[in-house]
């Protein structure tokens, strides 16, 4: 038992690692600030394309979305970070992370938005267009607000996944939360910094996860 506490909950080591880990947290938040808006924008595009009337737009969009849902994000990241340099394209870890996550997140957010768009009946389009709104106006003022509200829990749940996904950036040595903690672990030969990092993730995400469960239950009942 003592050993367990020594190894996983060593306060001294946690205190020692805290500054490094907080700096890592800063990087994690920075990644989130970049990849979440990018993913949402990309997802919206993907959703619009995959629900378009023209099949020349729809089919390639669906195919791309499915392709990037089939490839593990880590594979994508390593391909972008370690593969592209062979073609003379050398990217910083941050840019590599941004690109890989853009491709992955867009397809996941895209599926969520698509479900939202489908959930809005044709009547809303017809009503809005009959009042003289343009297609773009109808989309931004009538369809999207409703669609977003309908899939809000899924959007939030997917965002939780994106935040968790940022931990993959540690693999390409981008100094985010997990990378910082793992560095501290390898220096101290003690897992406590990782426990601390886990604690930070929990503080960050547990409230959201709880909220989602609550919300889900309210719909179910």
């Amino acid at each position: 038992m003592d050993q367990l506490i020594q190894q996983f909950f060593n306060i001294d080591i946690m205190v020692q690692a805290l500054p490094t880990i907080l700096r890592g947290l800063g990087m994690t938040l920075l990644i989130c600030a970049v990849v979440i808006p990018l993913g949402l924008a990309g997802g919206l595009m993907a959703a619009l394309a995959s629900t378009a009337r023209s099949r020349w737009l729809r089919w390639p969009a669906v195919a791309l979305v499915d392709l990037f849902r089939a490839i593990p994000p880590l594979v994508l990241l390593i391909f972008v970070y370690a593969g592209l340099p062979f073609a003379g394209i050398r990217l910083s870890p941050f840019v590599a992370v941004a690109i890989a996550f853009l491709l992955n997140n867009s397809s996941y957010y895209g599926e969520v938005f698509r479900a939202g768009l489908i959930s809005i009946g044709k009547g809303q389009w017809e009503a809005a267009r009959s009042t003289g709104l343009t297609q773009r106006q109808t989309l931004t003022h009538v369809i999207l607000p409703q669609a977003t509200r309908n899939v809000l829990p899924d959007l939030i749940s997917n965002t939780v996944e994106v935040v968790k996904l940022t931990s993959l950036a540690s693999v390409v040595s981008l100094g985010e939360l997990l990378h910082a903690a793992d560095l501290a672990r390898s220096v101290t030969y003690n897992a406590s910094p990782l426990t601390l990092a886990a604690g930070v993730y929990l503080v960050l995400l547990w409230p959201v996860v709880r909220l989602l469960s609550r919300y889900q239950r309210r719909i179910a009942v």
Partner: protein
Amino acid sequence: MSNLDRFIETFLNGAVLAKYTPAILQGVWVTIELSILIVIAGTLLGTSLACIRAYRLRPVSFLIVIYADIFRALPPLVLILLAYFGLPNVGVTLSSSTVLFVILGLTLGAFAEEIVWAGITSTDKGQWEAARSTGLGFTQTLIFVVLPQAVRMVIPPLTNRAIAITKMTALGTVIGVPDILNQATTAQSFSGNASPLTLAAVAYVVLFLPFVILSRWLESRFAWKKG
């Protein structure tokens, strides 16, 4: 050399592909085995816990919820590193594959528990009443009446989640599980060529795309029934 030649030379190099395909195929088997084990263990665990939660014994339910919350909130990679580097120091030595299986199985279990639980709670109250009125007990009603309907209801979201989590077997690379990605990165560094990575991506697409398409089909079928 034209740009296209150079591209093919770098990403689809025939000689490199031929040389490393066997290694990557080995990785494919590792990935498949782990995926199957994770899906079976995760769904069984999640479904059992959701059923136990149906009895609404406060302390038990509380523990289940804590478990499900933690494994849904934590990035699997954090848990994988924690288990892989932490446990040996307290005398528990697990192979990297075992660590990966345990952590991802527990992660899928957590999500499956939440999903199946949502299915159980959204099963019509009349089903419980009808079954109980014929003398079926609580457990019998749960197993023979409610669970079959709940499972049917939750198959689409569960499929999606299972795909997302089995894809995470790629994380095993970080701790040395000889999966597809691991074989590919090793081959890449030996060959000095990106083609093994291309092959890995293709392997993942071949493995997972059918399931992604299946999940899309399940979802549309589900949506039709509802409407």
